């Protein structure tokens, strides 16, 4: 099967996530080619055809020209599958390609079973097995689902792409969130608050427990969005990635974006009232309790240890 893998380029760098796309292609025994809009003088190492468009002309974000460039590559390659990472670049561009090709797009693929894709549903509590009914299929792959595989060494065949486009999008640049006073990456213990804390006053329960464990407190996205905790304490895809000796997830259901930021922790304790919460999949210990009752008692007992 001819596959076109879509690599990403941001802030002057080729992102490493296309190595996961390679692993996917290898698992399906496909013949991969690569598409990327990047610095034409520094394309990624890839043993095969690289469809290359110039980022100086087409920008790092411009769905209009990138769509047309990629469609041109799909056409020339006769690709039967177009493979993206399920990332801010991938989920933005993939539907535009799928529509133009009349193709099924299967989002956030975690596995392939007998030719069908498996994707998460209902906040990762369930899985859905999906079959494409179209000639061409577009997939986006969940970050981390396919273990990155370095490209084999070999000569690239560069195929330059150019199109005319009057894009309606003006990409103005990037903004980076202000760093705060806490580097969670250095903490040996992190106690994180999730939606289950219920109200801002309960952040104190988590902070107190963190103190009793001589660690720091963090939070999952909903708590930061509600502005109960500063953004620099957010753990997850859009916040910090941490790997402490002990991670305590309090009232955190375990959305994939959160898990991606903490799954390398050495020991994970979840405190939750829902024993089916997806955090249970990676927790070493799941304490089935209301954190509002459990945390103060645990904190008190730890102070006496």
């Amino acid at each position, binding site marked *: 099967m001819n596959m076109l893998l879509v690599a990403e380029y941001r802030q002057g760098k080729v992102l490493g996530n296309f190595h996961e796309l390679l692993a996917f292609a290898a698992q399906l025994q496909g013949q991969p080619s690569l598409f990327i809009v990047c610095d034409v003088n520094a394309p990624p190492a890839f043993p095969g055809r690289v469809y290359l468009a110039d980022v100086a002309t087409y920008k790092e974000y411009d769905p209009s020209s990138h769509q047309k460039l990629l469609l041109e590559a799909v056409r020339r390659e006769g690709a039967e599958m177009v493979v993206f990472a399920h990332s801010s670049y991938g989920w933005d561009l993939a539907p*535009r390609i799928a529509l133009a090709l009349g193709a099924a797009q299967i989002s956030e693929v975690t596995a392939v079973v007998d030719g069908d894709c498996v994707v998460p549903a209902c906040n990762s509590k369930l899985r859905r097995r999906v079959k494409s009914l179209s000639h061409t299929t577009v997939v986006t792959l969940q970050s981390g689902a396919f273990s990155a595989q370095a490209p084999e060494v070999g000569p690239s065949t560069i195929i330059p792409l150019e199109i005319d486009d009057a894009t309606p999008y003006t990409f103005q640049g990037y903004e980076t969130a202000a760093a705060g006073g806490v580097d969670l990456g250095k903490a040996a213990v992190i106690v994180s608050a999730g939606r289950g804390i219920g109200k801002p006053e309960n952040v104190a329960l988590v902070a107190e427990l963190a103190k009793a464990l001589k660690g720091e407190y963090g939070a999952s996205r909903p708590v930061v969005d509600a502005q109960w905790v500063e953004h620099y304490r957010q753990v997850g895809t859009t916040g910090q990635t941490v790997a402490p000796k002990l991670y305590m997830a309090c009232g955190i259901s375990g959305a994939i974006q959160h898990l991606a930021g903490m799954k390398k922790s050495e020991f994970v304790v979840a405190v939750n009232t829902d024993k089916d919460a997806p955090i249970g999949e990676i927790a070493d210990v799941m304490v089935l309790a209301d954190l509002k009752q459990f945390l103060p008692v645990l904190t008190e007992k730890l102070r006496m240890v």
Partner: protein
Amino acid sequence: MKILVCMKHVPDMESKFKIAADGRWYDGGDLAWRINEYDEYAVEQAVRLKEQLGNSDITVLSIGPERVKEAMKKALAMGCDRGVHVLDDRPSDRDAMAIATIIAAFARGRNFDCIFTGMQSQDRGSGQVGILVGEMLGLPAVSTIVDFSCNGDNRYTVKRELEGGVRAVVEVRGPALFTCQLGLNTPRYPTLPNIMKAKKKELLTVPVTELAGTGNVQDTVQLFFPEKKGGGLLLEGEIPELADKLIAILKEKTTVLA
């Protein structure tokens, strides 16, 4: 300005899900339903845009069975002006392409200046419908926005959320579509007077057959619970006892209490 907001009715994700008899979706019987979380941000942004510009009209659209009207009433109480309920008893049988086709069929020719959707639904999570609608209507569509401003003159500056705390600043000229990420704003709670007012707002029902187009391009073969991996230990019982047990485990398995 004419504004369209699309919203989906989804189960509370804390629910105990059961697989439906056909094995392809969840059983909707005993679930508590709410507005898809991402769509609440879309509704709120639409209302804020109207508050900024004045002289605007917000239509909220939802596809689903009779029950979705309840959620639409909340959107009306938050400040939408009228509702369009596309009556479809089994929307889960339709894929993202089919759902987007329905929305685009409604929007086409109605000259909306600005369309908001959530960036994805909490149950299906494909993250496709909003962008597909934009593409079908030939409008610029920007996904995953966490900041929105309308500069007058139909120009919009938005910030897309990327990975690792980075945002991309993008400008487009309307008409345009935006898909909303969590944290874009703080969705308001409807006030009692507004809940009362919402009861008098127009809530039109359109049979889905009037708008539906092409069939599916993909098929759900099976919905299932993931296998529980590994030997995570489940602790249940009285609170003080749980705390003692956990401390014993931490002493044994970690070095953090040393």
